[in-house]
């Protein structure tokens, strides 16, 4: 593996008319590194995630990515077809609401298999086998492979969405509040699964969350956002155990002890 970052974000800004979405954000993400972006609602973390993942056109700044052939590409200079291909092969995007990332009216197996077909696999038997294998890895029983996600619980849907994203062996995953809206017991299971998969597959990930416990469990590095700007960044346990900025201290001190 080359000792180089995978993703480089430089002076990224997005405004919605006079309102600031995110402002002058720069960072690098390395292979295998998990970055958590935290902050309260409206802090700009989802705007940032969408701009970096090419789902939302930034007002200024650049996002470059090291492709599998080691060539750096500026994502906003790629054409739409190239970007789409990147998103369904080398990237994954896990939405807070699984219905946004799944096709609810096709079977679980087809949801996973579809991503494989998108990268050119045409062998039905092999696709099904890989799909079943992935469902197992996210702890969905084989006898549910032909069921539609409509019939799944929230936690199962989220695990299915993760399988759908990981089946093409992406190098980078974006996650927007991956445990939002789930019961705590379901959350714990999902986090444990994500933690295992990320380290086993050496995935790089950007996780947007308002939950500092999720950030602590999943991420190596943390970026705290407020009013669209990054106010503090550093090693996750350093930022959480010794927060330096007033806003980070406020966030950390607002956690309820159980």
């Amino acid at each position, binding site marked *: 593996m080359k000792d180089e970052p995978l993703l480089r974000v430089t002076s990224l800004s997005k405004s919605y008319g006079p309102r600031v979405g995110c402002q002058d954000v720069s960072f690098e993400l390395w292979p295998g590194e998990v970055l958590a972006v935290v902050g309260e609602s409206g802090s700009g973390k989802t705007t940032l995630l969408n701009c970096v993942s090419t789902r939302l056109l930034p007002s200024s700044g650049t996002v470059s990515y090291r492709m599998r052939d080691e060539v750096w590409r500026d994502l906003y200079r790629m054409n739409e077809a190239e970007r789409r291909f990147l998103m369904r092969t080398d990237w994954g995007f896990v939405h807070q609401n699984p219905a946004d990332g799944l096709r609810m009216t096709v079977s679980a197996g087809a949801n996973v298999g579809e991503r494989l077909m998108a990268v050119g696999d045409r062998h039905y038997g092999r696709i099904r086998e890989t799909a079943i294998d992935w469902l197992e890895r996210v702890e969905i029983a084989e006898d549910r492979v032909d069921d539609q996600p409509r019939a799944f619980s929230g936690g199962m849907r989220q695990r299915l969405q993760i399988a759908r994203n990981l089946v093409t062996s992406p190098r980078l995953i974006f996650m927007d509040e991956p445990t939002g809206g789930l019961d705590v017991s379901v959350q714990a299971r999902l986090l444990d699964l994500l*933690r295992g998969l990320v*380290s086993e597959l050496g995935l790089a990930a950007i996780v947007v969350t308002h939950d500092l416990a999720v950030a602590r469990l999943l991420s190596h590095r943390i970026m705290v956002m407020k009013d669209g700007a990054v106010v503090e960044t550093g*090693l996750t346990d*350093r930022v959480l*155990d*010794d927060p330096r900025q*007033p806003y980070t201290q406020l966030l950390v001190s607002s956690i309820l002890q159980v």
Partner: protein
Amino acid sequence: MATPLVVSEVGKSFTMHLRGSVRLGVVENVSFSLRAGECAVLGGPSGAGKSSIVKMLYGNYAVDTGQIIVAHHGELVDLAKADPRVVIAIRRDTIGYVSQFLRTIPRVAAVDVVAEPLVSRGIDREKAEARAREMLSRLNLPERLWELPPATFSGGEQQRVNIARGFITDHPILLLDEPTASLDAANRKVVVEMIAEKKAGGVALLGIFHDHDVRDAVADRVIDVTEFAPGEAAA
């Protein structure tokens, strides 16, 4: 061989922004070094900043001033200013840490908690788990607990999982923050033996021990933390 750890003129304070930006000085001018094969002990009353020093050496607390030079993969790295990626690599390969409390993770079994530092270094999971079982057995953790997540364990049981996890690797530097606080005499003795083995293996250890018997048994010298008390300027 380079000195494993050299701390020079390290200072630390906390600024409490939510309390009228009160600045609390913790330590100033912390300077000492650790040799391979010795166990130095931080001495001084509670609140003198012993744990804060250990946490800075592990990258867990930010450092305001000074340097923490670590011999990492044959190079000298200033941990006080290192990038998070470098701190993570130093923790994986060079500096181990046994904290006072175990941070439990839901659903992860004790044996996996202990094996994890080896697995993260690319050691085969089965081998790592076998080593983890040896460590847990040596620390007398009942075998029926090995496959359970430690969240419901007693303080002493969690402490032993923590010690097993910290001692399983061959890190050249090991930081110990009251590793024996909630252990009975038999297990304290095991830890004292384990520390002696680390010393014989050339590991540089820095510890905090409130237990005098343990401290007397392992310490080669005591570093008096009250010498690093912040001056009037910090108030």
